[in-house]
């Protein structure tokens, strides 16, 4: 019998060790203007004063003078595009209503992302409607016109044209061929100018290693779907490593008991902190950061010799050509060893593709390091920074200040833009023309879906102007593409715009000589502490720190919102007498501690991407009342910036730092967690259920007992909507959480409200630990309204504000709700959310992102997951218009659409052939709290757990 638990103080002192009242720091008044809300419906309204004795305000409706082709008020139009929230370059379908994008969805046909879209991608749409986005160029912090900016900058540049090596162009990874070309063109005008790419979340060592072993400096493309054994050394490929959506899709495809023929892919994770990927591993080995490279070497040895000692080697050797070994190590030597292992196992050309390499990471840390050195030495006369923020995310990035001319292309006033002499704001991707080639042979297109808001100018246009050949971005892009596809270009172009990408036939695999690397000197692991810097799936490198959705998104593992923190192993924390929320000092950084089960004893882990100046805007997040507490930390920002703690070591940016002793400061900082302490108690509650592959093979199809106490008054003829959630596939990546928030106009409530457990997310992901705290197993469970057939909430509502529909939906009628909260109390799943305050905001620009098909809830009403009833209605209406029935898969809920793992399936239970009906019959299906007979419409598919056990490396 397994015992799940969720935090340590209760693990230590049993389920009942919590102060009756959590400590609340003294509140400080936060001034904030009233919030209201503007509903943007099919037309744009100019609300007027009451006309005469009329009761309702007069509404004005201004139709277009000339109706654009194919655009009808109230009808959504989808445009294919490409996500630029990170270099992974997932395919997008942009949903627009009446000329404004309101939601980003994954493009199911896209060969890289395969229909999924991560939380960051989902949230990035909010950037378009960001009030604080730069609207025109700045010179010395003052707003100027483009002409002034151009003239001033060109004047400065002319003097530099002949100066050798004076000009540097610094960018993040550029996946866009056009932009790369444009930069090249621009730099042609200078002697020995250089375009330098770096990644704040660098994988430079992998590229360097392939330079050594295969002679090409590229990042190979990992094909998880082809792997049967996956061994990952600290690579959080499901969370935030390179291309999580792509990897998650492949990974879950390889581990889906319904679809894949056994054996399911076996996954071992060797890591020092609890990562999302580690939480899914069949075998999780906890090793100190400085031991991991050693373990790689040992594995390499075993593979070389062909005499496996450990389980890993044994399984790997058994699966030659069907295995995949990867490492996030930033030591090129180690990476070379990894290549050697994969080479020996014959994984190149099978699970690892070098012929169609990935361009999602192109950064070269050595170049970046040199750049900073030159800048420090004052060798650089002009520095252009695009899609990067070195001052914030590079150790020693401050050196940029010494460059006499810094030109930034940032969309917002980030750290680098703040010190730049000129800022020439680039456009938001949804306003831009462009392209992206995340993986060799797959080139996505970017097309504008809205008129630019504000006087920004695309990077390529700006460069074209400076290169003396001003042209609109559209032409520049088309020209580049025309060169690639000269014949029948127009049709090709049309087709590409429609599909959103162009895919080239894969190249024939070419034989490459493999140069065995010299074995690295074994760095003996000293028994000291080490600090690990890592990106979270929500905040990545901090480029989206302006985004309140991402700040309020609970970390998939710790469930902390609105802050980063130093996580410590339970044992270590115990020794140091540190508890959750104690502020500790690590390598000069002071931040609150979080005790993280499954972390290595000598490891402190801190998330990157926080403490950015972009987060200063959240002073007013959350409602204002006498006991409200501020959202911002003591530093006036959200969290603390850990990037300066990284360091360059022989040519690569290292995120591990040895010899840092965490010290207790005695101060406390209360974190806002959506889910904390307490266990499932023992005996364990059957909320998360597991099944072994053997049991599953022999499991009988699930059925439902139908004892009826009452007369059968409610037959569900017609549709009967239902959903299944595959707990085995779900990685907890939280894409669905944001997707739901965007789709359903869920408000951001701010840190204090989350701290008071009033987060509004309709879709939450419960996370449970089981087993010993030093090496627990983890289960993720998406939880939301279960749409019970015998819903407790419905019976108790006095005003019929929540009742059952003829299609099995548990309806919540906001306008009828008086807010007794009885329904929430009587909900066994606590899936209901109450509007404690007027959470809707007055920000007219940001409100343009609101979904016009979903009512924005006012203060005092209850709300909850609706199974995206607006989508159901739309599908039904459309089907009705076309005079046909709704097809299976036609209605996709927002969470289902975004899920990279395809864990969520929605459909009509009354259609026996529908996917959901089939999965409901699966031997893995169970219902949460079945015993109280509330008859949920949501079925969960059991976790397929293969007890790999855990041990310390």
């Amino acid at each position, binding site marked *: 019998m397994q015992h799940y638990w969720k935090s340590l103080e209760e693990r230590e002192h049993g389920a009942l060790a919590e102060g009756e009242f959590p400590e609340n720091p003294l509140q400080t008044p936060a001034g904030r203007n009233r919030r209201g809300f503007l509903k943007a419906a099919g037309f744009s309204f100019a609300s007027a004063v009451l006309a005469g004795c009329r009761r309702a305000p007069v509404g004005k409706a201004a139709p277009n003078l000339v109706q654009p082709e194919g655009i009808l008020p109230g009808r959504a139009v989808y445009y294919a595009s490409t996500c630029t929230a990170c270099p992974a370059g997932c395919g997008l379908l942009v949903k627009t209503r009446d000329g404004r994008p309101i939601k980003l969805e994954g493009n199911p046909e896209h060969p890289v992302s395969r229909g999924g879209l991560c939380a960051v991608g989902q949230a990035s749409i909010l950037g378009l409607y960001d009030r604080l986005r730069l609207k025109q160029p700045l010179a010395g912090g003052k707003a100027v016109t483009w002409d002034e900016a151009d003239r001033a900058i060109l004047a400065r540049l002319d003097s530099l044209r002949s100066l050798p090596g004076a000009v540097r162009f610094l960018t993040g990874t550029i996946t866009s061929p056009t932009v790369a070309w444009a930069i090249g063109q621009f730099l042609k005008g200078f002697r020995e100018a250089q375009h330098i790419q770096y990644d704040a979340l660098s994988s430079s060592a992998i590229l360097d290693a392939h330079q050594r072993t295969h002679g090409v400096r590229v990042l190979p493309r990992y094909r998880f779907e082809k792997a049967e054994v996956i061994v990952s050394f600290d690579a959080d490929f499901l969370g935030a490593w390179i291309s999580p959506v792509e990897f998650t899709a492949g990974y879950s495809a390889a581990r889906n008991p319904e679809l894949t023929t056994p054996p399911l892919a076996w996954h071992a994770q060797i890591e020092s902190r609890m990562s999302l990927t580690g939480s899914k591993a069949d075998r999780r080995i906890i090793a100190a950061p400085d031991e991991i490279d050693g373990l790689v070497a040992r594995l390499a040895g075993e593979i070389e010799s062909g005499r496996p000692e450990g389980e890993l080697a044994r399984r790997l050797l058994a699966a030659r050509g069907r295995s995949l070994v990867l490492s996030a190590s930033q030591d090129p030597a180690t990476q070379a060893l990894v290549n050697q292992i994969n080479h020996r196992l014959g994984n190149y050309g099978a699970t690892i593709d070098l012929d169609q390499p990935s361009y999602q990471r192109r950064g070269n840390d050595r170049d970046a390091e040199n750049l900073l050195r030159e800048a420090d030495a004052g060798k650089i006369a002009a520095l252009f920074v695009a899609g990067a923020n070195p001052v914030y995310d590079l150790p020693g990035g401050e050196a940029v200040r010494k460059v006499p001319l810094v030109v930034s292309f940032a969309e917002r006033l980030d750290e680098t833009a703040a010190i730049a002499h000129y800022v020439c704001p680039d456009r938001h991707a949804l306003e831009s023309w462009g392209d992206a080639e995340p993986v060799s042979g797959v080139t996505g297109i970017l097309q504008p879906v809205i008129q630019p808001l504000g006087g920004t100018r695309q990077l390529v246009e700006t460069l074209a102007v400076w290169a003396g050949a001003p042209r609109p971005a559209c032409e520049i892009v088309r020209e580049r593409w025309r060169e690639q596809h000269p014949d029948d270009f127009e049709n090709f172009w049309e087709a590409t715009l429609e599909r959103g990408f162009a895919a080239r036939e894969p190249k024939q695999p070419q034989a490459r000589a493999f140069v065995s690397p010299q074995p690295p000197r074994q760095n003996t692991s000293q028994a000291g502490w080490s600090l690990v810097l890592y990106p979270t799936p929500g905040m990545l490198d901090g480029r989206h720190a302006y985004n309140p959705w991402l700040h309020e998104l609970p970390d998939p593992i710790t469930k902390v919102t609105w802050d980063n923190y130093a996580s410590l192993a339970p044992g270590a924390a115990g020794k140091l007498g540190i508890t959750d929320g104690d502020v500790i000092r690590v390598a000069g950084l002071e931040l609150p501690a979080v005790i993280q089960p499954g972390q290595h004893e000598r490891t402190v882990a801190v998330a990157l991407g926080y403490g950015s100046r972009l987060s200063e805007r959240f002073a007013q997040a959350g409602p204002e009342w006498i006991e409200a507490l501020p959202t911002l930390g003591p530093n006036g920002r959200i969290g603390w910036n850990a990037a300066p703690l990284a360091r360059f070591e022989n040519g690569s940016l290292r995120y591990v730092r040895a010899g840092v002793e965490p010290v207790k400061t005695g101060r406390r900082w209360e974190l806002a967690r959506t889910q904390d302490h307490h266990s499932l108690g023992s005996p364990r509650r059957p909320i998360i259920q597991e099944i072994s592959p053997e049991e599953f093979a022999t499991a009988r199809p699930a059925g439902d007992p139908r004892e009826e106490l009452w007369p059968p*008054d409610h037959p569900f003829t017609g549709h009967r909507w239902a959903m299944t959630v595959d707990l085995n596939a779900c990685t907890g990546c939280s894409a669905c959480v944001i997707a739901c928030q965007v789709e359903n106009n869920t408000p951001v409530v701010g840190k204090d409200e989350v701290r008071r457990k009033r987060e509004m997310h309709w879709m939450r992901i419960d996370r449970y630990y089981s087993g010993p705290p030093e090496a627990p197993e983890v289960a993720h469970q998406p939880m939301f309204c279960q749409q019970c057939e*015998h819903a407790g909430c*419905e019976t108790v509502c006095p005003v019929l504000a929540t009742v*059952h529909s003829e299609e099995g939906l548990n309806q919540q009628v906001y306008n009828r709700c008086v807010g007794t909260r009885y329904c929430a109390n009587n909900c066994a799943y606590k899936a209901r959310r109450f509007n404690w305050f007027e959470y809707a905001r007055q920000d007219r620009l940001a409100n343009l992102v609101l979904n016009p098909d979903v009512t924005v809830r006012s203060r005092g009403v209850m709300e909850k997951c609706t199974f995206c009833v607006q989508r159901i209605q739309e599908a039904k209406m459309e089907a009705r218009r076309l005079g046909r029935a709704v097809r299976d898969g036609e209605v996709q809920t927002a969470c289902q659409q975004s899920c990279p793992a395809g864990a969520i399936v929605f459909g009509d239970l009354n259609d026996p052939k529908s996917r959901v009906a089939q999965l409901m019959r699966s031997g893995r299906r169970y219902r949460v709290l079945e015993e109280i007979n509330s008859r949920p419409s949501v079925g969960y598919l059991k976790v397929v757990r293969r007890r790999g056990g855990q041990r310390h490396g």
Partner: protein
Amino acid sequence: MNRRVLVGIFTCEEDILGATRAARARGLRVVDVFAPYAVHGMDRAMGLRPSRLSLVCLLAGATGAVLKLWFEIWTAAVDWPVNVGGKPWNSLPAFVPITFEVMVLFAGLATVAAFLLKAGLRPGRKPRLVDPRITDDRFALVLEQADASFDVDSVRGLLSRFNATEVEERVEEGRR
């Protein structure tokens, strides 16, 4: 129409009771008896018929209950049947509590209303006090001098036997 009455004032329960009984034994017509509190046994002494208020109470209660029950079933199962938590259209058990409450409400209010009407009590009614101390500590027996056979002196004697503090003749105009 005016009539002459004989009023006897007493100071204690036993006396007034005795006097009333005696007077009726003599066949005198007792117009009314006044007391500061409900004198036990006075109804028998005066020979009052048992009140029919209980009947009102019963009927009103029954009406209330029936109406409410019908209304609940009609709204929940007939007028607009809504699926509430999979409960049957006519969830009779759930309708019982309110039915009961409404029954009590009807019964109570109706009874009191009936009482006030019957007793002619209403706001603004000028009390006709036989003696100002009736509501304090005095009891009064009012006898009608129906006809000539009414012998004032003997009646005075009778009343004083029950130590009436004072006995006086009055002319009472109109009926209450």
